[in-house]
């Protein structure tokens, strides 16, 4: 079962993710974002790997920067990602993303994410789980 969903924001889309630990939370957040870009994430193959290293202490801002980095790759290199591994600690984030270049023959696209926003951005404990909410500008 997926631990993420989208929620309502008048003009755009909210991503809501829950996970047992921070690493999974960040990985699922990236998957959630790409599931709004591509109609069916299963059509994307894990052919190449991108390494991302980001400094930072504030969890919200780290999540922001992580998603932003992936978005930048999509926009400039037309790369779609489908699988993610992330490690978050006090110094920052180390993440890997696997995917392939966009191929319009195989990938049906649904949204262009213009930007990640700070609006309502949160990463926090919710009982036994971690919760993240991010609104993306469509």
């Amino acid at each position, binding site marked *: 079962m997926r631990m993420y969903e989208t929620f309502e924001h008048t003009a755009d889309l909210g991503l809501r993710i829950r996970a047992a630990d921070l690493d999974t939370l960040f990985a699922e957040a990236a998957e959630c974002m790409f599931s709004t870009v591509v109609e069916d994430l299963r059509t994307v193959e894990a052919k190449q790997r991108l390494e991302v290293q980001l400094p930072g202490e504030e969890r919200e801002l780290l999540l922001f920067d992580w998603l932003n980095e992936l978005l*930048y790759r999509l*926009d400039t290199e037309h790369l779609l990602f489908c699988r993610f591994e992330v490690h978050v600690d006090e110094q920052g984030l180390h993440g890997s993303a696997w995917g392939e270049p966009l191929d319009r023959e195989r990938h049906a696209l649904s949204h*262009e994410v213009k930007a990640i926003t700070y*609006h309502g951005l949160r990463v926090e404990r919710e009982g036994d789980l971690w919760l993240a909410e991010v609104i993306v500008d469509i």
Partner: protein
Amino acid sequence: MAKESYHGPLERVDDCCWRIPKSYKPGMRVDGLIFADDRLLEQIKGDQAPEQVANVAFLPGIQHASLAMPDIHWGYGFCIGGVCATDPNEGGVISPGGVGYDINCGVRLVRSNLFYRDVKQHIRPLVEELFRQVPTGVGKSGRYHFKAKELKHLLSEGSSFLVGRGLGTARDLEYTEAHGRLDGADPDAVSDRALKRGEDQCGTLGSGNHFLEVQIVDHVFDETAASAFGLEKDMVCVMIHSGSRGLGYQVCDDALMALRKAPEKYGIELPDRQLVCAPVYSPEGEHYIAAMRAAANFAWCNRQLLMQQAREVFATVFGRSWQELQMNLVYDVCHNIAKFEEHTVSGKRKKVWVHRKGATRAFPPGHPEMPQQYMKIGQPVIIPGDMGRASWVLTGQLGSMEKTFGTTCHGAGRAMSRTAALKDAAGRRIDKELLSRGVIAMAQSHKGLAEEQPKAYKNVDDVVDVVHRAGLSHKVARMRPIGVIKG
């Protein structure tokens, strides 16, 4: 963060205007004013947009009031459809959130000498060819690539850079807001990431609510103005709605990042992190302004290239050059921008920074900033509606200078969230429904089409009615879509 209704105060000023008094929240420097009739107000209260109007009133140096147009809806920090003017000499600030991610998102309208009767047999091939030739949607490179050095020229020179390369005419510049170029743009204030995102995106439509439509002049309300704009009933026109693409989004993103600590540094108290701002007279403020102007110039170039591509498609389909088809630009307006303009505030003339976030400049007759030919009529205002019903051409009125810093609405405004619209469209074929209404629509994304379905928007006619009655702008012509391409 769920969608909640607004329960704060709203006092009636007149039939078309409501006030949020500055006593509502300590920290508000001026009142909030929302232009809406009773019916639209009910919809507006459905989310937190009025709260955002109140929050904008906290900004240092804000003049007159925090203003909102009838098409407002919930945004980030600022509502979409908001107007705010600040005086730099009174500590006034510049706020990237008051411009938006899509810097200089805007609309242009191109007329032609074709009429509905000439094209009705050719609409499908025309729309198909537009869809083939004009890049739309995610990850689609444009036909035009600009190397870093060229891109920098483009960013400082705006549309004139393209005209110098034969991609448009001097007349195109004359009929573009600010002649398609804001002075003071500094390409060196634009980050490498933004430049990289812009490299292959000039001349691409993008997605979301952006579109290129073939439209028919459906009804003329003001013959004199329509004739000055070159419009007649049943005439075929092209409307283009797009902005600064990834380059502009990145400029906004970079600014939000750079300004994270500015409010603290300058002692500015804000009720919402997305309202981050810096004094106009500060290194941070000046840097953003220089980059924002460069992104605005990029957006004008983008719409210029989109128009050129549309002109070429028409020439191919109808076998005549675009000049023979008299595909002249009626006007190009921006609706996400901040500009330094002269206005009268409490009887005094002064220069203020007018932030228009989802709001359109609407200068009245006689204002020097418009083509000579329109001087007696007023500046054309182009209002995109939804893809099933209508769009509008208006003209600026004196009321806009008195009440809204020369500003009017920018569109229909969303009535449904994307999620709600998608749910609503489940099991339906929006393209077939549009076809039955006489609109051929082609989009890269079916989901996108569902989210942008006509029902997801307020009726643009109602919005336009309010700005017309409030004296902000005046109805010239209603446009009906017959062909749509989208991302």
